């Protein structure tokens, strides 16, 4: 399989374009014939990651790469950073505002969903600077 790399820019609170990055990633995976079960896990994780950047950050980027045996997604935002990562990882915990909850987000399942879907998961955050999430999937 030929290695493919894409980098996407994501804007804060851009709910109208929400899901476009994940949709593009899903199309690439379909085109190169990734197993449907893996496509599903990557799609869920990439969508939740994309929504986290839109809902909680000041904007950022997502990098997607696929090689012969591994898919990697790196999400990097421009802050504000996560105060307590253990708390943020807890199912049901959310800092989403009321307007975002009205759209159906803010269940506090985003990060747990990403971790559950991924084979490798890493989150690093510095308050006032950025959050970086690295997600990997074995093919």
């Amino acid at each position, binding site marked *: 399989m030929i290695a493919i790399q894409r980098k996407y820019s994501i804007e804060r609170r851009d*709910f*109208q374009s*929400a*899901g*476009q990055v*994940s*949709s593009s990633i*899903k199309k690439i995976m379909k085109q190169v014939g990734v197993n*449907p079960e893996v496509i*599903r896990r990557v*799609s*869920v994780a*990439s*969508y*939740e990651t994309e*929504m986290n950047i839109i809902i909680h950050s000041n904007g950022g980027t997502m990098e997607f790469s696929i090689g012969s045996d591994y898919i990697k997604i790196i999400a990097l935002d421009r802050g504000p950073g996560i105060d307590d990562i253990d708390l943020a990882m807890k199912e049901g915990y959310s800092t989403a505002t009321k307007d975002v909850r009205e*759209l*159906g*987000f*803010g*269940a*506090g*399942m*985003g990060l747990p*969903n990403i971790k*559950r879907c991924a084979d490798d998961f890493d989150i690093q955050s510095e308050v006032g600077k950025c959050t970086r999430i690295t997600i990997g999937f074995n093919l």
Partner: protein
Amino acid sequence: MTVKELQQQLDLEILAAEKEIEATVINDVYIGDMLSWVIGNAEAESVWITIQTNVNVVAVAVMVGINCIIIAENAHVDPDTLLKAEEEKIPVLRSELTAYQIAKRIDLGN
């Protein structure tokens, strides 16, 4: 069961992607309005019953592989949502019934 059979059985109003209803098959039903619960738990090839109607429901359906969305209790649907559903070829149907009443009437035979 196809979406068309479902639509006829429950007398559902068709709001988007009418061309797809004959060929689209559903194998499961999921009810929910919190998007992360749906994306984390709904099975592919499901029909999804919800009162959530903003454009993000279509993206969630695409990610999970949900085949059809039924809007319960005649909730108002954003025009953007229907445009997106047409684009992604996901039928959106609507009923005046509650999610429970809709689900009760769906017999998948399994």
